[in-house]
Structures are given as C-alpha cells and as structure tokens.
C-alpha cells in the first residue's frame, strides 16, 4: 500500500499548495485591468486612476474574472498531461500486452476526464463573466469540448465490449488516437480562426506569476495523487479478484 500513502501525501501537499495559490491569487496578486470606467469627477477610491481627459476621469476596471485563470489553466494543463500519460500507457500496453498497463491507461483517462470536465466548467464561467456569453466557440474551449467527447467515447467503447482483452486493445488504440487528435483539433481551430478575440494579454506581473506557478505545481500533484489513489483502488480490486479466484478454484 505504498502507493496509497504516496497518493495521500501528494494530495495533502497539492491541496496545501493550491490553497496557498488560492489565497495568493486573491490577496497578493495584482488585479489585472480590463478596460476603463469613466466618471465625471475625481473619486476617493482604491481604483487606479488611468487618465484624466476632457470627458472625465478614467479609472481602471478591475478584471475580477481573470482570477479564474489561476486555476482554470493549471487544471487544463494537468488534464492534458494526464491524457498524454494515458496514451503512453496505452502504447506500452499494446507493446507488452500486460493488463497492468491497460489499467493504468484507463485510470489516467478517467482522471483526465475529471480534469477536463472541471476545465470546461471553469471555462464556461469565465466566458460568461468576461465576455457575457455562456459559450464561445473559441479554440481552447472547443478543443476541450472535443476532448471531453472523445474521453466519454473511450468509456462508451470499453463498456460495449464483452471480451476483456479486446476491450483493453480497442481502448488503448482509441486512447492513442484521442491523444493525437487533441492537438490537431487545437491547431486547426487556431489556423482557421479569424474573427475571435485574443484571449491572453501578454505580459504578467510577477505578483501574478507566482500564484500561477504555485497553483500549477499544486494541481499537477493533485492530478497525480488522484491518479495514484484510483490506481491503489484498482490494485485492491485486483487483489480481491485474485484471492477469490484462489479460494474458489
């Protein structure tokens, strides 16, 4: 049960790091600005005065929804990395035909699906907050939507096959295809996109970068911990099966 212990330790550290990042995002990170608000006269306010023009005083409009990014992006990146992990295990399964690799690939896919769904949810909320619409067919969101569909398809495929080994082989083949397809989707949406706003403003203050990095490291740990946790559950299940087999045989 070494893996379970590692999972729990990583989960705790990851949780701690992400919580720290959470507080940093709201208390130490500089608030980004998103356009300005113009009022007639000067105000006694914490808002930053950007310019004084003929038609009044312009104050920076704090970009509050940008705070979602501190977690949205790390979750998205973790999901993609875990998908890659799943594909790597899938390839190793096809090479060795060892069931343990198939289990790893499947669990990685499951973990990735959880992260992708969370990416989607935070992404949708961010779109709503920032652009005022719930959904935008923007390259990143679209890619994640397609990724989510592929992952669901992966589980549909597995569940519709009776034979255990065939299920594993087909699952592995599809996992590889999905992992290859995801970046292609992203690139093609990018290349063909012409009339959508650019999402990122370049350049970030160091006070913003730090919570970002902390959140990223923490989220990767959480991602691995979730994977390890599910793996130890699978291992236990296998031990139970083996014991039952031995008892009844």
């Amino acid at each position, binding site marked *: *049960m070494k893996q*379970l212990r590692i999972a729990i330790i990583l*989960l705790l550290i990851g949780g701690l790091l992400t919580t720290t990042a*959470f507080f940093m995002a709201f208390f130490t990170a500089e608030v980004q600005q998103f356009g300005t*608000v113009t*009022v*007639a*006269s000067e*105000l*006694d*306010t914490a*808002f930053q005065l950007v310019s004084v023009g003929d038609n009044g005083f312009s*104050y920076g*409009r*704090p*970009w*509050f*929804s940008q*705070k*979602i990014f501190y*977690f*949205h992006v790390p*979750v998205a990146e973790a999901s993609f990395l875990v998908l890659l992990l799943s594909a790597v295990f899938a390839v190793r399964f096809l090479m060795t035909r060892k069931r343990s690799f198939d289990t790893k690939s499947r669990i990685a896919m499951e973990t990735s699906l*959880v992260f992708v*769904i*969370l990416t989607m*949810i*935070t992404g949708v*909320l*961010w779109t*709503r*907050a*920032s652009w005022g619409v719930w959904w935008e067919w923007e390259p990143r969101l679209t890619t994640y939507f397609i990724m989510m569909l592929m992952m669901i398809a992966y589980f549909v495929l597995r569940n519709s096959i009776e034979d255990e080994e065939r299920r594993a082989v087909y699952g592995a083949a599809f996992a590889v295809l999905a992992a290859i397809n995801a970046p292609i989707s992203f690139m093609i949406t990018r290349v063909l996109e012409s009339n959508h706003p650019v999402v990122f403003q370049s350049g970030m203050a160091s006070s913003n970068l730090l919570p970002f990095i902390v959140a990223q490291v923490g989220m990767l740990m*959480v991602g691995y911990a*979730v994977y390890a*946790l*599910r793996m*130890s*559950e699978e291992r*236990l*299940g296998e*031990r*139970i099966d083996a*014991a*039952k087999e*031995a*008892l009844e045989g």
Partner: protein
Amino acid sequence: MEATNAELYRLALTDAPYVIAAYGILWISFVAYVTMTLRRVMRLEKAVVVLEESLERREA
C-alpha cells in the same frame, strides 16, 4: 460622490458570482471525488484483509 464609487465597485463585482462559483465547483468536485474514492479504498481494504486471511487459513 459615494454613490458613484459604489457603482464602480458594483461594476467590478459583477464578475464575482462567477469567480466564486468556479472556485466553489472546483473545490467541491475535488473533495467529493477524493472522498468517494477514499471510502471505496477503505471498504476494499477491509474486504482484502478478510479474503487474504481466509486464504492463509486454507493454505496453513
């Protein structure tokens, strides 16, 4: 004066519910998923102990 300032704040905070929702959903989902998995793991561990004990007894 004060009214305008409040308006500014309100404008800034229209985003707040979405930010709160995003973080809330994120954390709640993680905690729920991990708790569910941990509970399953603990149940399985009990089952393993029972089975492997009876296996040892049989082999002894």
